């Protein structure tokens, strides 16, 4: 937080955010949302509850959820006026598709058959290397917040920067400078052994860098999450099955990503290590899944309205990345949070007005 918020001070820019913040100046729900909700005395948190299905009544509306206690395996239910789903894209989709009933044979709220389809997971490439100009310089404390340190926003919308594909990509720069992961996994690529190897590892320690472009994948109906007909988890609940492939548009984008990485490294005087042009990271590496329960104005082509509320089942809200109609090339968490916040404001309003 750049300013004092909810009684917590502004960021001091002196910690390792990835390990948690001593002053709670890093926004997270455990510091900034849940304690305030608990203070109302109207929140009960049930941990270790693995939700399997949304239960529906004869009117087709949701009436609660069925879950299993992770420690004992016991099956339980929570009954509710409204169900808000936020289990992350893949698992929310699985829950929705597993929530079949006479009113919802294709999964709850899925008369349109869009739930599970249009899975958008970004494509990711990566390159690692080092800057000879930095080799042998003192180790610096410049690793950043723990992960990406520098972010290069999408640029291909600028004049003269576009290419023959739709949408675009941004890039994250990781472990710039002193890199612990650089000290081991990459150092093993340095030839030889002995004192000369040790010297070379030390020289390169402050010089490593990693580049990770993330690109948007268009929403395709054939990229989809289904639930398995044969494989179940230990509670007997069908597992997700994912069909996913990238298309021509993404392949063209990946080439632009590779060209961009190579151009940056060349201009900066870097040396790439173990670089294989054209290699795309395994599908799912970006862990930014979206799109399988998308919002939209048309109930035939979307599952949720503009407030994350199901078109077909108005007492179910889905508030994670699955609600996005496309992925974008960016990290989605803050947008997910903003949309969820907006959806729950709407939910409170609707309850107040007696519509739910």
């Amino acid at each position, binding site marked *: 937080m750049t300013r004092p918020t909810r009684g917590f001070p502004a960021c001091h820019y002196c*910690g390792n955010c990835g390990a948690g913040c001593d002053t709670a100046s890093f926004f997270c729900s455990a510091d900034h949302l849940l304690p305030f909700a608990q203070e109302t005395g109207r929140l009960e948190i049930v941990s270790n509850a693995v939700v399997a299905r949304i239960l529906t009544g004869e009117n087709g509306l949701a009436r609660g959820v069925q879950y299993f206690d992770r420690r004992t395996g016991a099956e339980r239910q929570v009954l509710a006026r409204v169900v808000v789903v936020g289990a992350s894209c893949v698992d929310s989709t699985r829950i929705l598709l597993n929530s079949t009933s006479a009113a919802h044979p294709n999964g709850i709220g899925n008369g349109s058959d869009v739930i599970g389809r249009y899975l958008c997971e970004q494509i990711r490439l990566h390159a690692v290397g080092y800057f000879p100009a930095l080799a042998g310089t*003192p180790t610096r*404390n410049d690793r950043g917040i723990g992960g990406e340190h520098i972010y290069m926003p999408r640029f291909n919308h600028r004049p003269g920067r576009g290419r023959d594909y739709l949408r675009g990509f941004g890039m994250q720069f990781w472990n710039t400078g002193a890199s612990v992961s650089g000290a081991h996994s990459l150092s093993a690529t340095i030839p030889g052994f002995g004192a000369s190897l040790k010297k070379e590892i030390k020289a390169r320690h402050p010089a490593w860098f990693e580049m990770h472009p993330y690109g948007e994948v268009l929403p395709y109906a054939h990229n989809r999450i289904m639930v398995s007909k044969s494989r179940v988890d230990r509670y007997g609940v069908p597992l997700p099955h994912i069909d996913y492939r990238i298309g021509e548009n993404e392949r063209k984008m990946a080439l632009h990503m590779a060209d961009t990485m190579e151009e940056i490294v060349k201009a900066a005087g870097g040396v790439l290590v173990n670089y294989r042009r054209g290699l795309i990271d395994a599908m799912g*590496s970006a862990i930014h899944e979206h799109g399988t329960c998308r919002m939209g104005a048309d109930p035939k082509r979307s599952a949720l309205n503009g407030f994350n509320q199901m078109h077909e089942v108005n007492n179910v809200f889905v508030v994670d990345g699955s609600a996005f109609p496309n992925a974008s090339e960016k990290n989605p968490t803050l947008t997910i949070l903003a949309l969820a916040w907006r959806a729950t404001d709407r939910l409170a309003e609707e309850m107040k007005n007696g519509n739910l």
Partner: protein
Amino acid sequence: MGTSEDLRLNRRRVLRTLATGAAGVATSPLWVEALIALSDEAGQIRAHAHASQPAVAASWTPKALTPAQNETVIVLTELIIPETDTPGARGALVNRFIDDVLQKAPQGERESFVRGLGWLDRQSRTLFRSDFAAATPAQQADLLTRLSAEGNPAREQQAGLDFFRVVKAMTITGYYTTEIGLRQELGDPGQLYLPRFAGCDHPEHQA
């Protein structure tokens, strides 16, 4: 060291790495990539644990390896990262790290590693009429130089090259995730591995 669950979890990373083919030479067998990824992950976990428990037990016996195999590992890892103005792999107890990783690794990977040690001894006996650990430092270095050589190896050398690749990566990981390797040798503040963040003490940043 992490729990076996940590290592299981990270097999996913191994598979991901293999799927991308990004981490290494395409011709490396599965066990090579698997052990490297497992040790990479174990190194991260250990670096954190080390920060809170820097003391190490004085008495220790290998669990995955025999005492003789452990001796070979000590000699081999010290050749890879030797003592200079800072301690080497022996001083940083890299052999214990490797034994820990092997203990938690799947049986197949563990056996492949042990076969690699066997290969090293056989090769050493062929060349120098002595097990590797008992050969002279010059002979040991000679053998490792052959395993470090660039270019296309003879087919019978491949097993040795695979093994050396694993041992080298595990040694580097095991060494540079210790107090000795990270702080003393690299001069890294190691702030990612502080046992706890004491808090920012800049007066202007206090609430």
